[in-house]
């Protein structure tokens, strides 16, 4: 592996010149563990990253670097295990505060992460090289034709290839999908009987439109489920987390959400000073724990705010003035080309950002109730009717020109309501809603070329509408 190319990669992803020599050996080792060749790194540095991300901004580069650090850290887990560090895995989507609370209580004794997420993000975002990982899981029984989630397949492969060891506990969340938790059972039954897991579930039984965070019985049940799961984790790893650590982690998360809100507000400036992918990436630690902590990304976010304000002051943007902008709730950051394709056609795609309710202080004091209430305010994790309400709120607040849905075809929960939501949002706002079938994580079935015509048509329609 050519060290200069690797060093260049690290520079591109926001590493300080002084830290590169120290980090380089681990990075090279991580590439080896993940079957990335020198050609892959070269392609990333010379072609992929410059064409996909707004690396002119220091904040964005540093944000990308946070993901690189996590992915490299992931490949150190076999070493951590030998050293006696307790490994706690989880899956997306989950309430990250518990993992951060654990980490804040015993920083050196525990490793926390969602391994599949960083594996997928690293391989696909930076190298466009996820497919071989998925094929290994497909050969083992997560068949291609069934359209399983790439994250779950990556989790299986990560273990199958020995990239990660068995955890002390995988605390798996089934608040959204079924396949996530069942994948842990799959790993345990079919490959690694030491893959200890504990699932925390919440039935999808709220009538459409229920504001779930206001149903005390539901908040209480969820809080009990979270407490039950977290107590199990603490028992297994032998680390007792004081409740004030959960509260502390929640407050940090909340401050981070407020900062994200600031960035979201800046994106409404005409012309928009930053693309949707970059804005979304900077918000990642809100919902997924970083073993290296939330703080480095918070700093990257702070830097981005500074960079973006500079662009606003200079009247510079990433789109022409008066360009139509679509809201997309969860920007497919592993397929950055999608948003770029819209931008090339003069249309922005931006995240919705936090809802008004998400920025309000909690109604409860008990940290589990606080976390449960926050979860049930989530704009993607609740019933479709409430979800549609929250989408409408931001569509109108930020004066979006329409809504983009799709790219979650593998997800029997997040993806399966898209057509219904499209109807509800159109009925309520009169704005156009576009549904594009696709995959958030991988692009074997939905390549740029297969979608280009559709994207171009959507952009033409939007521009015509905007022109009146």
């Amino acid at each position, binding site marked *: 592996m050519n060290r200069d190319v690797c060093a260049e990669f690290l520079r591109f992803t926001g590493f300080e010149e002084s830290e590169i020599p120290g980090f380089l050996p681990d990075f090279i080792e991580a590439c080896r563990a993940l079957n990335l060749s020198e050609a892959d790194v070269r392609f990333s540095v010379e072609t992929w990253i410059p064409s996909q991300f707004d690396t002119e901004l220091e904040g964005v580069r540093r944000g990308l670097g946070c993901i690189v650090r996590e992915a490299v850290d992931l490949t150190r887990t076999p070493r951590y295990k030998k050293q006696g560090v307790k490994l706690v895995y989880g899956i997306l989507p989950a309430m990250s505060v518990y993992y951060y609370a654990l980490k804040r209580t015993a920083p050196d004794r525990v490793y926390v992460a969602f391994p599949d997420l960083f594996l997928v993000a690293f391989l696909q975002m930076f190298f466009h090289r996820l497919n071989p990982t998925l094929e290994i899981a497909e050969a083992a029984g997560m068949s291609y034709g*069934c359209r399983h989630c790439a994250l779950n397949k990556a989790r299986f492969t990560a273990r199958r290839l020995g990239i990660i060891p068995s955890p002390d506990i995988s605390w798996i969340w089934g608040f959204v999908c079924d396949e996530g938790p*069942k994948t842990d*059972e*799959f790993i345990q039954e079919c490959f690694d009987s030491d893959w200890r897991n504990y699932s925390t579930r919440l039935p999808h*039984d709220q009538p*459409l439109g229920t504001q779930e965070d206001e149903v005390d019985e539901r908040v209480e049940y969820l809080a009990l489920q979270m407490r039950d799961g977290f107590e199990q984790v603490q028992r297994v790893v032998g680390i007792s987390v004081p409740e004030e650590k959960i509260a502390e982690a929640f407050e940090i998360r909340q401050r981070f959400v407020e900062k994200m809100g600031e960035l979201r507000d800046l994106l409404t400036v005409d012309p928009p000073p930053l693309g949707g992918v970059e804005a979304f990436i900077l918000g990642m630690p809100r919902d997924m724990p970083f073993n290296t902590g939330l703080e480095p990304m918070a700093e990257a976010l702070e830097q981005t705010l500074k960079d973006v304000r500079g662009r606003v002051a200079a009247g510079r943007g990433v789109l022409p003035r008066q360009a139509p902008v679509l809201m997309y709730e969860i920007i497919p950051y592993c397929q950055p080309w999608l948003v770029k394709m819209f931008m090339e056609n003069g249309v922005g795609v931006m995240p919705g950002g936090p809802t008004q309710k998400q920025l309000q202080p909690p109604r409860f004091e008990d940290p589990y109730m606080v976390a449960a209430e926050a979860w049930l305010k989530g704009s993607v994790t609740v019933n479709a009717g409430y979800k549609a309400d929250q989408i409408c709120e931001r569509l109108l607040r930020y004066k979006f020109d329409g809504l983009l849905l799709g790219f979650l075809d593998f997800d029997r929960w997040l993806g*399966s309501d898209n057509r219904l939501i499209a*109807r509800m949002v159109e009925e309520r706002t009169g704005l156009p809603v576009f549904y594009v079938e696709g995959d958030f994580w991988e692009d074997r079935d939905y390549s740029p070329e297969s979608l280009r015509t559709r994207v171009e048509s959507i952009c033409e329609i939007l521009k015509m509408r905007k022109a009146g």
Partner: protein
Amino acid sequence: MTAKAAKSMEVIQGRVKTFPERVRREKRGGRKIVGMTGRFVPEELVRASGAIPYLLCRGGDPEPVEASLPYMHRFLNPFVRAQLGYHLLGMDPVVPMLDLIVAQCDDCHASRLADLMEYLRLPAFRIGIPPDWQKELSVRYYAKGLARLKGRLEELTGRRVTEAGLRASIESLNRVRTVLQEIGDLRKKENPPIGGLDFLRLNHASFYEEPDLFAAEAASLLEALEEGPGLFAPDAPRVLLAGRVVAVGDYAVPRLIEESGGVIVAEVLDEGVRHCAWKVDEGGDPMDALVETYFLRRLPPSIFQPSWGIRVRHLKESVLGNRVDGIVWYQLAFDEVYDMEYAAVARAMSEMQVPILKVESSYEYARESTGPLATRLESFVESLRAKRRVGP
């Protein structure tokens, strides 16, 4: 099949055909009609409230699956999509008459169906089924759900569900389970007097009949079958059919298995059949008994966690107890949990040296799809027959 048995089957199946008309009459007379989805809504409770239950469990046709597309994405399983599709196409005469639809929300597919029922202004009532079933927290959740359902049914029918009434309903449905189990067990004979296709249809029929009437007619059928001859070739391979569901009307796969010369001697299906081996306790508090049987005692469905270890053990026992030669794993397209479970089951069966064939369906049974399916099933049955001849 003897003439007496054939007559009994005809009577039972004939009653199924008249179900919509009977429901219409009852509705005119003021009775409430309550739809149900899935396996966790106790029919006992609906009947004890005086309402007529209607299980939404149809499948096997491609058009209803397609009809759901404007509301659902295409990667939900065809069974769930069909439940909505029959209604959208006006092919389900009962749904428009329903006063309530109790929709179980156990997995993403079923929960989305509940969403769409609400969106289409059907009178849905959700009941949440926590898949992390071994926690006390989850058991209480389900129990609470049943208590809410009881209240809703009482409100709807204006009739209190008394302990005595519920117990009577439990006893009545246990009689149905007992007689069905006895009929099913006839397939343990070397040459069974009834095959899996007829047994599945019988199971389905039991959902659309008053339990006491069904139990009486099924008892006559049992008697006739006990006296009757075996219906299959002496060397017919014994097949176990496993998967999520064989819906009412989705008979292509079981029919092809038996037309190919095999006999289905056992089923391990999560929905669409009565789980007759698990009767509801007739003593004690009947609501507790429902929770105990429906949620905890039966074989956990694939979505429950943990479940696959338990299910594989159960399958192994079924294979041995029914002298099964091979398994047909009948999977619905895009049913992600069953797709993964298959790998665990296939591994266990390979260790037991029991052949297993995975068949996936999107309810596309046009001639061009059925041909290759028939060839696969015929080859599988033939290979089982050859294995029988050679011996283990």
